[in-house]
Structure formats: C-alpha cells, structure tokens
C-alpha cells in the first residue's frame, strides 16, 4: 500500500486549489492502480491549521492537530503539494507550513508540485518558487508539475487541456514513486543522539590512547 499525502493551501471554501489537488490525487491513484499498486491518500487542508501554524512559528512546538498533519507527511511515500499563486510565489501560509514542518520530513520524498492562479501568466511559479523550496528540503521533485489558471477549469479536453496535463503529471509521478521504492524515514532525534555518542566515544578513546596530547 502506497500512502500519499496531499497538501492543499487554498484559502477559500470551496477552493479551486483543493479542486486541483483532488483531481491530481485521483489521477495519481488511478495511475498507481493501473500498475498494480494500491494507494491511499490523506488530505491536509492548511486553512484550518492557520492558527496552529502561526503559533508553532512563535512558540516552537506544534499542537496535536498540526502534529497529526506532520505525522501524515512523515508516513507518506509521496506528496502532492498544491498552493495558490500569490505575488509571484506560493501563499505565505503554504510556506509557513513547510517552515514549521520538522527537519528532514521531506528528505527523499517524491513530490508533485502544483499551483492555481488567476491567469496563466503566473505558471512559472512552479519552477521559480515551489521547485527550489522542495529541492532545498531534499525532496525528489517530479519533473512535471501542474499549473491551473481560472480559465483552465472551463476549457475543453483537448491536447493541452487541464485534464490532459494532470494525466501526464500523474503518469510521471506514479513512475517516480514506483522507482523510488520504499522511503527511508529519517529520525533527527535518533540521528542527533547517535552523533553525540560517536563524538563522546571518540573523545574518550583519544584520552585513553594518548593522554598527553589529548
């Protein structure tokens, strides 16, 4: 069973960002099913987490509902991340969520990036904002993202239609997830302890073998 996490940064209800997220999620699962892999997905809507995300930035810890979202991401094999385009970038809430997400949560995680916007003029937000951020977080970003302008929701099903673009992105992403295989989850807590053990043991051995030179 492949676990997908879907992060939707839409602010309104109903939200076209969520609509896009659901369509991509459905397409990815259909694609995985076609290749014989069953998949489940958990959707994380950021709007209800608005205050917990801000509080976490101010206090340094997450309340249980935000912690639950972190766990869904931690346990996922792939992430579909969708944000509205604001001021030539992702929304502040979307960025803030990834700012408070525990370190290394996305390390080695296949990610499909997607965004919505008022017009198609903002489509490079995928390449200029989302892709660098997820690369920085050590995610494996799928080469094909999906950008949907408002008009896309009313356009036909032609070659360059939204449905077709979603399908192409879903095929690439499903391949990426399958070829990446099971993800090794990193536990920073344990890594930090192990590093300290290594340093302490090395220091002790130095003192024992060479007490004069330390």
């Amino acid at each position, binding site marked *: 069973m492949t676990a997908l996490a879907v992060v939707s940064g839409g602010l309104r209800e109903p939200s076209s960002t969520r609509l896009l997220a659901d369509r991509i999620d459905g397409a990815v699962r259909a694609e995985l099913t076609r290749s014989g892999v069953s998949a489940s997905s958990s959707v994380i809507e950021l709007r209800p987490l608005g205050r917990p995300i*801000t*509080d976490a930035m*101010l*206090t*340094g*810890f997450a*309340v249980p509902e935000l912690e639950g979202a972190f766990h869904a991401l931690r346990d996922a094999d792939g992430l579909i991340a969708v944000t509205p385009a604001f001021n030539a970038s992702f929304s502040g809430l979307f960025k803030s969520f990834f700012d408070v997400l525990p370190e290394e949560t996305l390390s080695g995680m296949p990610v499909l990036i997607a965004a919505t916007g008022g017009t198609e003029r903002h489509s490079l937000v995928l390449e200029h904002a989302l892709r660098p951020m997820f690369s920085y977080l050590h995610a494996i970003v799928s080469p094909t993202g999906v950008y949907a302008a408002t008009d896309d929701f009313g356009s036909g099903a032609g070659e360059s239609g939204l449905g077709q673009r979603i399908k192409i992105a879903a095929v690439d992403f499903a391949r990426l997830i399958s070829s990446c295989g099971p993800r090794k989850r990193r536990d920073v*807590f344990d890594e*930090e*302890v192990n*590093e*300290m*053990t290594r*340093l*302490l043991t090395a*220091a002790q051995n130095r*003192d024992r073998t060479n*007490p*004069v*030179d*330390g």
Partner: protein
Amino acid sequence: MSAMQFGIFTVGDVTTDPTTGRTPTEAERVSATVRIALHAEEVGLDVFATGEHHNPPFVPSSPTTLLAFIAAQTQRLIVSTSTTLITTNDPVKIAEDFSVLQHLSGGRVDVMLGRGNTGPVYPWFGQDIRAAVPLTVEHYGLLRRLWREESVDWQGKFRTPLQGFTLAPRPLDGVPPFVWHGSIRTPEIAELAAFHGDGFFANHIFWPPAHTKRLVELYRARFEHYGHGSADQAIVGLGGQVFMRHNSQDAVAEFRPYFDNAPVYGHGPSLEEFTAQTPLTVGSPQQVIDRTLGFREYAGDYQRQLFLIDHAGLPLKTVLEQLDILGGEVVPVLRKEFQEGRPDHVPDAPTRESLVAAARAAAESAGRNVEGQQP
C-alpha cells in the same frame, strides 16, 4: 534539605511592565535579582539559578560575580546557573570562576551547562555555531579534566593547547561542583549527561510534556546503559513556570497582560491554550501543587524542581509575593507529597555534603586517602 531540591531560575530579562508601561533600569533589574535570590532563601527554598546572556535586554552576563554576591549574603542557598555556556566560554575560565565561587560559598554551588541558542554570541566569542556540538564535547571534556587532574596536558581543536596547567584554586575538598546539563529541545544533551553520569535538567517550560518525557526517558535509559546506576537512579531536574493567587481567577486576570506581551510566547497562543499545552500553571497554590506533583508521572522520581517566576516585566513586589506563596504554601506540601512512594534506592538531590561523602567512600574503597581533603 529533603530528597528533592526546590528553587527558582531567572532569565534576567529587563522587560517593560505592560500594565504600567514602565521599564526598569539595568541597575534596578540587577538589584531586584539579588533581592529575589535572598528572599528565596528567606522563604525556605534551596536553589537560585541565573541564566547567562550577552545581549540586551538581559543583565546576567557574568553569573559567578552575581552568584558570589548572593552567596555572601546567604547561609544555606545553593547558587547555580541556567545555563553556563559551555560553547562560548573558555573552559579554563569556567573552571577558575566556579572554583573560586566554590571556596567563597563554602561549596554551596553547582553549575548547569548549556550550549546557548543566541546565534551572534558564537562569533562574538570567536566560535562557530555550526560546531556547537563538537565544541560542547571538547570544552566539557577539558573542564572535567581541569577539575579532576592536578596537572593537565591537553590539546584540542577549539582552544590553544595546555602543558602542565594546574587549576588554582583546586576544587574545595578536591570535589568539583555537581554538573547539570540543561536542554530545551536537544536529545544530544541528554546523551552527554548520561555518558558522564551527570545530572540532566529539562527546561520543560517551553514545550509540551510529551517532549520532556521523551528526553528524560532517553537520559535515564542511557544513564543505565553507561553503567552509572539503574534508570530510576539518574539525576533529573525540571523547570516549571507558575503564577499564583489564592483565588485562581485573580491569578489569571493579573498574569494575562504579562503573558500576552511576554517576549517568548506573547502574541501567539492564548494563556488558556498555553497552560493546557505546556507546564505553565496560573491559578491557586493548590493547582500549582497538583500540576507539579503530576510531573513525576512522566519524569519519574526526580531531584530538582526550579520555577521561573520573575520574567516578562512582573514587578519586584509581585515576584516577592510569589516567593512567599511558593515557600509558605506550595513547597512544604511538595516536599512531603513527593516523598510518598519514593523508592529508597532513588538518590536524594546531590549536595556538597553528599558529593564529599561519596568521594571519601570511593577513595576508602580504593584503599587510599582523599587528596587535598584538608583545607
């Protein structure tokens, strides 16, 4: 003194009182800190600990100077730190400062080491924050040797080498101050404390109890792993944060403006949310007693409880009243209640007397006399 030690720890912040708009001067804050420490002894508390900061709006940049002044005016109080920066202070100077303080105070001193989390302090003192962990290991390794070995030859990465260096004065009775390692977040510090068999102090006040539980469990398990005793014999200290009035609604109403504007958590979660999520307790003395006794459920039987009571612009008069309630009504009950069901093999909080006795016993079992026992 009982099996557990109770006291207060201060950040030493100069903060505007949000209810009056008045900001104390640095001089007022320093003298208020001394007054608070002296009153801690007057109301029967065991420990006063100060933070160390090197930037405004904080005043305690030279903790041992402050602590010596306090020790000179007290008889029983243990003076300590929360924390002493093991990364950016020269370990030789730490050894010297605390050695002199030990002699001045008649041994009423211990130390809590920490890494420090104010970025610029590292470059100000010629260090690199990215090396904070190896720096901690190396500096503490040297500090231990300075306190234990007569003549030290040493070479490391972060400090100039030493050849034939002898710490003067030698630790009082040949027994160095007890060392706590303080941590807000990092498990590395729990591992460091466990490795050396030192005390582990979980700051506890900024994070949910589940986090403290994980750190303390790690420390206890590793303490046993390194052969210092069973897990429940490890030496644990916890922070806490309280504001009390006899009527709990009065406590909430009086403390709210200080909470809402506090530098650390102000303008974020509500007072109600933060008290539910963290160990902060605002209410009646009985509520503080009940909450504090509950710490044992996830930290086990522990040795030291320090409360933060003098921050966020609270006026001196209010802080002294908090001490009256703490010493008069809360701590006597906590001493008694914490004793209930505490197994005999769980050690009491370390004191100079217990450390000297342990050193003598160890020396006798090794078949020789304790060196430097006579003053």
